[in-house]
């Protein structure tokens, strides 16, 4: 039995979207109360679409992989679609069974991004 799926291990070892943006249109950051992990997500928007996204954080492999696949999933997508995403859509992409105790790790980057977009939407 492997600890995590191939997707999680791969994204943890070689994240594609880890880093920061110079001029993000939205950014957000939050803490996982379970472990105190902090995840920060930034995105650039154009015509209501996410055109570029990056994440940083001292976090576990699950959160790291979740943030990385999330930004891949949303790049090029309308912000409205991002708001409809659920942790389950991330889970499907991670191709992994995650225990209930670690679901916060999966959900955190998505919650942060959705929170940042909501702030942008309310003038």
């Amino acid at each position, binding site marked *: 039995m492997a600890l*995590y799926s191939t997707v999680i291990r791969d994204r943890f070892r070689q994240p594609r979207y880890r880093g920061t943006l110079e001029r993000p249109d939205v950014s957000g950051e939050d803490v996982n109360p*379970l472990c105190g992990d902090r995840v920060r997500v930034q995105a650039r928007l154009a015509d209501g679409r996410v055109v570029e996204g990056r994440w940083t954080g001292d976090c576990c492999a699950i959160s790291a992989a979740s943030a990385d696949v999330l930004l891949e999933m949303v790049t090029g997508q309308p912000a409205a679609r991002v708001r409809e995403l659920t942790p389950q859509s991330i889970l499907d992409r991670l191709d992994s069974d995650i225990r209930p105790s670690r679901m916060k790790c999966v959900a955190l980057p998505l919650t942060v991004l959705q929170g940042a977009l909501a702030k942008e939407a309310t003038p």
Partner: protein
Amino acid sequence: MSLGERCRPDFPILSRIVNGHPLVYLDSAASSQKPASVIEAVQRYYETSHANVHRSIHTLGEEATELYEGARDAVRAFIGARSREEIVFTRGTTESINLVAQAVGRTLGPGDEILVTELEHHSNLVPWQMVCRDRGTVLRAIPVLPDGYLDLDTYARLLTPRTRVVAVAHVSNVLGTINPVARMVEQAHRVGALVLLDGAQAVPHVPVDVAALGADFYAFSGHKMLGPTGIGVLHGRREVLERLEPAWGGGEMIKEVWIDRAQWNDLPWRFEPGTPPIAGAVGLHAAVEYLSKLGMAQVSAHEQALTALTMEALGRIPGVSLYGPANPEMKGAVVAFNVEGIHPHDGAAALDLHGIAVRAGHHCAQPLMKRLGIVGTLRASFSVYSTALDVQRLADGVAGILGEL
């Protein structure tokens, strides 16, 4: 045969298979497992003697009262308290501390100061923050030095006539540091401050004599010392408890009640409103008997040897860093560590695959984590049933973590 090997058969849960491997339970600082004698005592109580305590004029009520009050006497003797009036049953360490914070907090005001330390568990920090918010009292913290010890020079400087309360962990739940509490109590008393010691990580592991320590309050939990969850103890010095107003009201804590006022009950019941955790007390009594039979000096020596063995075994693994005092003799039964490049939760999940249960995260001590500049740690912790084989399997598991990710 080591103490751990002798104790193991008494703990039914230790024969469990977890993820295909025999369980290696190294999370006793979070909650210990229970010997059959404790489980049976609770079951026997519910099967034969359960009723509400103190005012039931029937056989079962009398039996339940006798068992509940008998537990109080056993706890008194176990921690060397001067009288049974000094033993207040609560639901756990957290409730014991909140009780003191509420009751003592009412006597504090702006300008008064409460001293805590940077290594406190949130349960000995947040209740005091709430007092400060409500009363305008000032919270100050004794720093932790890089070697895991408290900065006692700064402590001496922070103590002033404004200091009204000093709240300190007897043993750190992360670093394992055994703090020099007897000396700290003496210093605090010299400026007239009350002292609360959080003994949650001490009573299960080292001999504790509350009369000798001299603290005004001493708090601990049943479930970390082989007893059930939902039972805790607050030891209070009689002369201090006597002049303190109860924290909470309800049944049992009164002598007489009128529509507009009430007269408080005697000690210790004044601080025990509502139906108490009777079964918890019965189980705690059995736990105290189990530990007494082993002898706390033997328990302490056994666990200290395991702490030393763990520090040595983990210290040899490349990429592993250990936290807290380097001298195992200055530590309780916990070893906090990290594996380079591995988040503690991933490390714990990897060990769990091999049936090894350790704690991972901030251990409810976020200010300490911030001080150490880390998000969290892995933590192995021991109890009477822990063995050298547990430590060996932990070390093997930790050495293999990098391969899992």
